[in-house]
């Protein structure tokens, strides 16, 4: 959809909601806030008018960004007994895409909301889960036991399609035998990819760095997922819908744009198993992935004390006298601060690199190969569970077919309650179907009321009384939520540059993997920490081998 057309639709929706336009009287829109990821600060960065630092401090290791990558780097440093580091963060609190919110109902996610059972090779993830007590017993066991409270309660997911809720996300009702045959062939092919090994490497590993580099596999990164599906004879519309949904959900962009390597990775990388759960079970909490970010932050605080400097925008990264310097703007203090570090771990998104790094022409050029998907997340606080159309009962993840949004997750799903009372629905929408620039413009221009109207209208289809029950509706916009793994990004030169090590600088963001998964961000963080410790000559036990 064109941006203009999109805005026209919004305007129409706004007009339709005016009183006296023929529709029955509607309750007023619920109150709420429009929250962005410090958008105004980002724009000051572009304007380049931030004051020069008035003060200089030294720190041996500096980590820029307290998302999962930065927290994982700090976590690994602290676990290795190294505590001379500082993590600086633009937002008021750590967590990045794994932050959660809380109100009188309880916690709810602000973005990422689940972690699949970790793969065999995700050793650092398993180590973290064991430290948090969620993975019980040997963290490297093939089928560990997990704390029941973190395993997603049944039913995990359902799909609303043609006025009916069905179990699972793969469309089944009214799907022809020929389409089902394609489903079977597709999943058999994905299973073969999952099983395939080239020497010691799995074809599609998670973390992706451990994947096979076989030429036929890397060639998948040169075409789109849709072209690959069509080339394999997969043309079933519902299969395309399903794969498109998966791509939008994990990569923020549809199957026509996502690289086939990334698209197949989604289906073929996961081989985690559990003693006490089916292999497709995910780990989740009311606050989504907030517990993972908070767990690492607490682990750092327990070993190294307060290592976080929040509300600080890194606006210039330079190198002088064999050291790295980072200039920070602290809006609360209305002054700038220069931190001079021996080792720098850049754990912030790579779209910032061209605006922040001085010199470093190669890095800046590489960063321009990236594009980031804009996202919108809304938290709807409900006085009680809404009525619903017939079919499967309420699941944790509730997907909407033929809908601009991806669906919603239910924050109270993991709660042990006899009677489900008030709850928070977290609604997700990737602004795909337009360019990221257009999507960001839409995010900037659309008022909260227009989003609220649109989201309620969308959720009213499966839940006719949701408008009456919504007591609050907060909208969170993120213009650069995640890197888009378009063809050529994952196995191209640009990304490999960010995955490499340098004497004083390394990157610890999921962007260095080319797509935004918890496992990738945590791997990049731990890897950067281990490289840093090696440069400093500090002993450590690797979490990655």
């Amino acid at each position, binding site marked *: 959809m064109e941006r203009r057309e999109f805005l026209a639709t919004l305007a129409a929706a706004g007009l339709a909601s005016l009183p006296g336009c023929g529709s029955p009287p509607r309750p007023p829109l619920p109150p709420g806030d429009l929250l962005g990821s410090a958008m105004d600060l980002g724009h000051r960065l572009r304007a380049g008018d931030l004051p020069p630092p008035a003060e200089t401090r030294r720190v041996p290791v500096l980590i820029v960004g307290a998302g999962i990558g930065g927290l994982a780097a700090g976590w690994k440093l602290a676990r290795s007994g190294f505590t001379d580091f500082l993590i600086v963060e633009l937002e008021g609190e750590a967590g990045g895409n794994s932050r959660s919110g809380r109100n009188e109902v309880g916690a709810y996610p602000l973005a990422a909301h689940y972690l699949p059972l970790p793969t065999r090779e995700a050793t650092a993830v398993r180590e973290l889960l064991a430290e948090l007590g969620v993975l019980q017993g040997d963290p490297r066991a093939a089928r560990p036991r997990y704390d029941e*409270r973190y*395993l997603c*309660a*049944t039913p*995990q997911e359902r799909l609303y399609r043609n006025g009916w809720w069905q179990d699972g996300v793969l469309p089944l009702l009214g799907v022809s035998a020929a389409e089902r045959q394609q489903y079977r062939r597709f999943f058999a092919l994905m299973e073969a990819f999952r099983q395939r090994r080239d020497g010691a490497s799995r074809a599609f590993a998670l973390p992706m760095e451990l994947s096979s580099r076989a030429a036929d596999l890397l060639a998948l990164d040169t075409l789109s997922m849709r072209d690959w599906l069509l080339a394999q004879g997969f043309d079933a519309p519902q299969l395309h819908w399903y794969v498109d949904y998966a791509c939008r959900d994990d990569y923020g962009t549809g199957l026509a744009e996502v690289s086939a390597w990334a698209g197949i990775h989604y289906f073929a990388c996961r081989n985690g198993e559990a003693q*006490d759960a089916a292999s497709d079970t995910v780990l989740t909490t009311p606050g989504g992935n907030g517990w993972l970010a908070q767990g690492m932050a607490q682990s750092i605080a327990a070993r190294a004390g307060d290592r976080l400097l929040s509300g600080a925008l890194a606006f210039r990264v330079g190198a002088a006298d064999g050291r790295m310097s980072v200039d920070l703007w602290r809006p609360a203090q209305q002054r700038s601060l220069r931190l001079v570090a021996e080792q720098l771990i850049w754990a912030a998104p790579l779209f910032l690199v061209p605006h922040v790094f001085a010199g470093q022409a190669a890095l800046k050029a590489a960063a321009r190969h990236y594009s980031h998907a804009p996202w919108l997340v809304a938290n709807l606080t409900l006085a009680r569970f809404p009525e619903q159309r017939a079919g499967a009962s309420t699941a944790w993840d509730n997907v909407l077919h033929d809908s601009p949004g991806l669906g919603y997750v239910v924050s109270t799903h993991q709660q*042990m309650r*006899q009677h489900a009372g008030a709850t928070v629905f977290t609604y997700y929408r990737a602004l795909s179907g337009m360019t990221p620039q257009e999507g960001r413009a839409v995010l900037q221009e659309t008022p909260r009321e227009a989003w609220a109207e649109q989201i309620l209208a969308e959720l009213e289809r499966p839940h006719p009384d949701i408008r009456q029950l919504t007591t609050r509706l907060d909208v969170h916009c993120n213009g650069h939520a995640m890197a888009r793994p378009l063809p050529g990004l994952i196995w191209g030169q640009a990304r490999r540059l960010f995955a490499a090590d340098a004497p004083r600088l390394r990157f610890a963001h999921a962007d260095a993997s080319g797509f935004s998964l918890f496992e990738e961000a945590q791997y990049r963080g731990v890897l950067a920490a281990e490289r840093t410790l090696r440069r400093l000559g500090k002993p450590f036990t690797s979490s990655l081998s």
Partner: protein
Amino acid sequence: MNQALLFSVFVVASCGLAYELIAGALSSYLLGDSVMQFSTVIGCYLFAMGIGSWLSRYVERHLVARFVQVELIVGVLGGYSAAGLFFIFVWFSAPFKLALYLAVFAIGVLVGLEIPLIMRILKRDLSFKDVVSQVLTFDYLGALAVSILFPLLLVPHLGLVRSGLLFGLLNVLVALWALWLFRAQLHNAAWLRTQAFVSLAVLAGGFAAAGQFTTLAEAHLYADEVVYTEATPYQRIVLTRWKDDLRLFLNNNLQFSSRDEYRYHEALVHPGLSTLPGARRVLVLGGGDGLAAREILKYPQVESVTVVDLDPAMTQLFSTAAPLRKLNADALLSPRVSVVNEDALQWLEENDDSFDFVVVDFPDPSNFAIGKLYSAAFYRLLEKHLSAGALAVIQSTSPLYARQSFWCVVSTLESVGFVTTPYHALVPSFGEWGFVLAGRRAYKPPAAYPVDTRFLTPETTPALFQFPKDMARVDAEVNRLNNQVLVRYFESEWRQVIR
């Protein structure tokens, strides 16, 4: 005039098919086995129509008047067929099938008369060829219209009873129209018109009162007089009475019958509590009716009974209504009892108290929300609230009707480290019912009961712990929050019982 008569063929055919569909739908709704019901109802109806057509040869004179009368009888009989059959089923269930086939047969005969009569009326002005082709065309068109409207519009919006009455009204309107069309040829038009208006009034009255009628009939499905109903935010509470039998229904599920509830509550409480002479603090989860508390209060050593029931309306009802207070012997008003109206799970999570005996008396695990109350995670939470030598008893559905469900509860309790002792008792209004005692040590049944009982004796107690072959242990998975196998077992097992 011919066009008008042809239109009435359309209406008459619609009504004819509608009665057939109503009888088929009603019988399959009430008796089940829809293939059997539809097939026999349609067969009987078509056969009756054949008889009606054959009988039409005996109508020799006053064709229009006879047609009008047939329409009126069909209208009233067919119109009230659904309502009447529903009443007969609810009040005297035995002759329902006889009444059904009699009604179907009678309506079939009358409908069989209609078309031949119309054809003969039309034959006066049209050729045989035209009569056959036009009448049969409208006949089949009417049938088509109703066969589409019936499932899509009529049943969903009007229901069977009102749909029947609506078609009855249409038949009477056709009769009135015929009276007007042939007003010149009829001798006794006034008398016929009176009959038609009476029929019209009878049907219209029925249509207007149909809402109340359905409520009345459905209320009767509870079998007894409904003495109390309340819809709370959590459930629908219905209390019925027949002579001295009070019955409590929550969301239409029977919770107890005052005639035999003592069997259930004695079996729930005494096998466990009578072996705990040191039990001071007792917890009841669910059980807002105070009946388990009544049994617990029989033990003088018990100092406090905490009843946690989500619904304040339940505990309020059972501490104020005289017959219910009599039933639970004012248990909820006892100074030893404290009532907590909170979510049992939340209360257990937020409270550190421990208890010497815990009664877990939740509804059967018929949905995912209640299934959580039977999960390993729940029993792990429960375990934290047991004092050193404590026991918990869990109502665990029927080991006979839902055998795997019952043993699934046992497996789940064992998976979190409990030593379990399953047992069962016969409660006539429920059937064979199951309970599980859970503790940290092996349990030994009591040699004597220190309190008054009506059902349990020390001599018959050992039999409670013996499971006959048809209730013996079967393999069952552990019920976890992330698999909810118990709800699946329970659904499939009770579905088979209900069939």
